[in-house]
């Protein structure tokens, strides 16, 4: 059984193609593993019956010679994606009891490509957080443990796609969808020692994904390998006329971009990503990444992204502003929680006061404040101007380089409960991921080494707008060269 779980998506597809295993067998193995690892609190709504039905249907299709890009592959779905007739919560009390009558475009694309649904995955409430501790379903536990620490040491998986990252790392899902607004795929990818890909804004449809910050939200895959990431993104992406911001351009064959060759590519190393107080081990990992790519024949170039340090504060205006408006629909009228009240305003205040957790309230209030009369120009417009400067920095840099290499996160995974009373400290987790989010650029986190505490650390590669292919190409080489083969001690 355990060797079945060792297969990655590419390996499992091969085994399925060769009829060495059926999707039902593979899925059953994952369902067993999910149960065994229930303590990690990754799945908030497991769907075992649905999984087996879908696996059987997949096996029948395969027998007929029909086979999609992810045919028979069991995956988990972040609970931010609306799934038809399966509860969808965004990890918020305010969506208690909500069962969508519709299916998000990204998940519909996955099912069309043959994937099998294992269940819905835990996350930070409305995707707001970097530790997966802000969830009405309770925190998710990272399957990794610090070297020497006992089994009682519980670490965060990162967030907000923490359930997705932990599930893939713990081998209780072959792949998982995540969403990334300011780093919510890449940072948990780094914390859990797996690959997390945020594609270009517009590459995956946002239709049916519960919105956090509309101008930043992007769906992407969390997988064990770069090849799996390319396969899964290919099955998720595509133009959707239902999303006005979806890009009407063809989806390239991402897997074909994995040539294993980076000779002649120019890789930028931004000097502004050496931030104050960054641990030496992060700096060392970054240096190692540069060396590996140089050895593989890439040309490493120092570049400047001068407005980098303003990305995070700009993000913490724009994202909450959009969120304050996006979350206005949770008013207790048409779905979800309703608390009593004598008149609608009363009912709204009670419903939203009880339904939203601390971090959501914090951000909705910040967002409401920065949009309110007299502050809009000073905050929101200012932040959008800074955002234009940040995008401009990248555009200039990409005049001279093909991709940019940075660390993914400024630290390894921390303990559940740590930093919880310090919102800004928590926000700093995203210092390296937010700039590319603001610019809309594709970026990936690849596991590249272990911290002194024995925890995974990732390196980030950022590409030009809609040039996921170069990102995958460099990531594949980096992955190969780094040879990260460590496994978490927790999980299946």
């Amino acid at each position, binding site marked *: 059984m355990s060797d079945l779980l060792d297969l990655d998506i590419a390996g499992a597809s091969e085994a399925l193609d060769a009829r060495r295993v059926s999707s039902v067998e593979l899925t059953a193995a994952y369902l067993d593993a999910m149960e065994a690892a229930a303590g990690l609190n990754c799945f908030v709504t497991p769907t075992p019956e649905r999984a087996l039905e879908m696996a059987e249907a997949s096996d029948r299709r395969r027998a007929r010679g029909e086979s999609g890009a992810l045919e028979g592959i069991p995956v988990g779905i972040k609970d931010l994606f609306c799934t038809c007739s399966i509860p969808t919560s965004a990890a918020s009390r305010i969506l208690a009891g909500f069962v969508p009558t519709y299916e998000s475009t990204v998940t519909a694309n996955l099912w069309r490509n043959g994937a099998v649904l294992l269940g819905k995955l835990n996350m930070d409430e409305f995707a707001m957080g970097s530790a997966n501790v802000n969830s009405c379903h309770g925190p998710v536990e990272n399957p990794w443990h610090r070297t020497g620490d006992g089994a009682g040491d519980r670490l965060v998986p990162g967030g907000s796609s923490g359930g997705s990252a932990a599930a893939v790392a713990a081998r209780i899902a072959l792949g998982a969808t995540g969403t990334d607004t300011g780093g919510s795929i890449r940072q948990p990818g780094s914390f859990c020692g797996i690959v997390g890909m945020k594609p270009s804004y517009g590459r995956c449809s946002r239709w049916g994904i519960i919105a956090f910050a*509309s101008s930043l939200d992007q769906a992407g895959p969390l997988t064990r390998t770069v090849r799996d990431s390319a396969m899964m993104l290919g099955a998720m992406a595509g133009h959707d006329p239902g999303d006005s911001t979806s890009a009407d351009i063809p989806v390239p064959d991402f897997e074909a971009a994995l040539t294993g060759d980076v000779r002649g590519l120019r890789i930028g190393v931004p000097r502004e990503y050496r931030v104050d107080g960054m641990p030496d081990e992060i700096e060392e990992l970054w240096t190692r990444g540069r060396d590996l790519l140089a050895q593989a024949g890439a040309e490493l170039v120092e570049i400047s992204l001068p407005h980098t340090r303003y990305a995070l504060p700009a993000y913490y205006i724009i994202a909450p502003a959009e969120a304050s408006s996006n979350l206005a*629909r949770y*008013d207790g009228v048409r779905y979800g929680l309703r608390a009593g009240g004598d008149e609608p305003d009363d009912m709204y205040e009670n419903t939203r006061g009880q339904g939203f957790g601390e971090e959501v309230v914090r951000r909705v209030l910040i967002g409401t404040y920065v949009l309110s009369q007299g502050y809009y120009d000073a905050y929101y417009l200012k932040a959008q101007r800074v955002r234009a400067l940040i995008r401009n920095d990248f555009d200039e840099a990409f005049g001279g380089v093909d991709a940019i290499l940075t660390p993914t996160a400024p630290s390894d995974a921390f303990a559940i409960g740590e930093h919880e009373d310090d919102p800004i400290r928590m926000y700093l987790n995203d210092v390296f991921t937010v700039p590319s989010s603001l610019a809309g650029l594709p970026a990936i986190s690849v596991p590249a080494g272990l911290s002194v505490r024995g925890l995974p650390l990732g390196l980030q590669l950022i590409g030009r707008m809609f040039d996921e292919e170069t990102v995958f190409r460099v990531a594949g080489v980096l992955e190969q060269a780094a040879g990260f083969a460590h496994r978490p001690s927790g999980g299946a």
Partner: protein
Amino acid sequence: MSTLVSGSTGDWEVVVGLEVHAQVRSESKLFSGASTRFGAEPNSQVSLVDAGMPGMLPVINRECVRQAVRTGLGLGAKINRVSVFDRKNYFYPDLPQGYQISQYTRPIVGEGSLRITMPDGERVVGIERIHLEQDAGKSMHDQDPSRSLIDLNRSGVALMEIVSRPDLRSGAEAAACLRTLRTLLRFLGTCDGNMQEGSLRCDANVSVRRPGGELGTRCEIKNLNSIRFLQQAIEYEAIRQVEVLEDGGKIIQETRLFDADRGETRSMRSKEDAHDYRYFPDPDLLPLELSEDFIAGIAASLPELPETRRNRFVSQYGIGEAEADFLVTEPEIADFFEALADGRDPKLAANWLTTELFGALNRAGLPLSKSPVDAGTLGGLIDLVADGTISGRSAKDVFSEMFETGQAAETIVDARGLRQLSDGAAIAALVDAVLAEHGDKVAEYRSGKVKLLGFFVGQVMKQTRGTANPQLVNEILRERLAG
């Protein structure tokens, strides 16, 4: 003509600006594929987007954009090549998204103007802007003792908000402005103008000032759903404000409602935070860019506007100005007239339409669109009069029956045997018979009692049940009696 309000301390000038919400004529909603049809079952014309379901996204209806541009061009306004959709954030049970998608700083249409006619001459009313926005749903407060009920059928329907400059100086001018605008929208085909069904609603911003002085503080009267109420509300509000000011009080800027039963405006309950809408560009939508070609294409296909058409009616058909004004109040009337006038005497056509047909429609309480008599049928009747087939007198009877039954004129004429007798020999024979029968009266006539001609005419008409051509009867009678 003075539009001033005279108070006890002198004259006051009334200053009015209008905000008109016109429902865009389209099959589906502004940002969803749900139907816009009026009067459906509750919540049956609601997409998941209109219901503000999680993860739902707007996609704009190209026809609504076209309609807004068409309206802008009809008002001679500047069409903005780039416009932006903003979110107007507020909480209300019939606002499912918690915000209305509207346009704030960059509307699709900029400045234009509208010419209105008052008894003492024309006025030009400035149009400040037109923006596209979503309508909200409908709340019903009196169906259940403890709850309000929400129907989202209207949620997401496209509206054009047309904002005038404060160029109007009385309730009557405001009424004329709205009436003229409504006519224009109907000619353009961009709004059906149906105020009962809420396709056209109007807010009025009213203030008073000393003639030519500084603008006063204004009050906004919301949701006026008839032209008469608009005028009444402004007239009431102006006098109210004058009284407050003359009593040494101050006008508080506020939103007021018009109570049609009492003919009064009253202050609306408002929250302290009611006006902080936190507008910002909707991140689900990109800026709307219009090409020069797109705008030019719409300009080229613009229908003839009411003012132009009215002037053409006067010059081309030689009809009176007042009649022409009436004929362009609705595009259907103008079209009906032109179909009727085609190949006929236009003055006769105008007369039949405005006097006979509208007389009958008004008595029956029907709009022209429900008329049992169409232009072809009415034209058939006019033709029978013109070629002498029937007399003008029978024509009225035929019309009455035509209006009842919708039958063709010929059919009615034949069925009732009303075809005019114009055969000279036949009439002469009848005349001779009548004269022979009334020899005494003939003698009286010849001795100077010429008034008896009417008697002879009557006798002949009686014999023919009124179908004899009266002109011929007269001619022949005179001839014979002279002989």
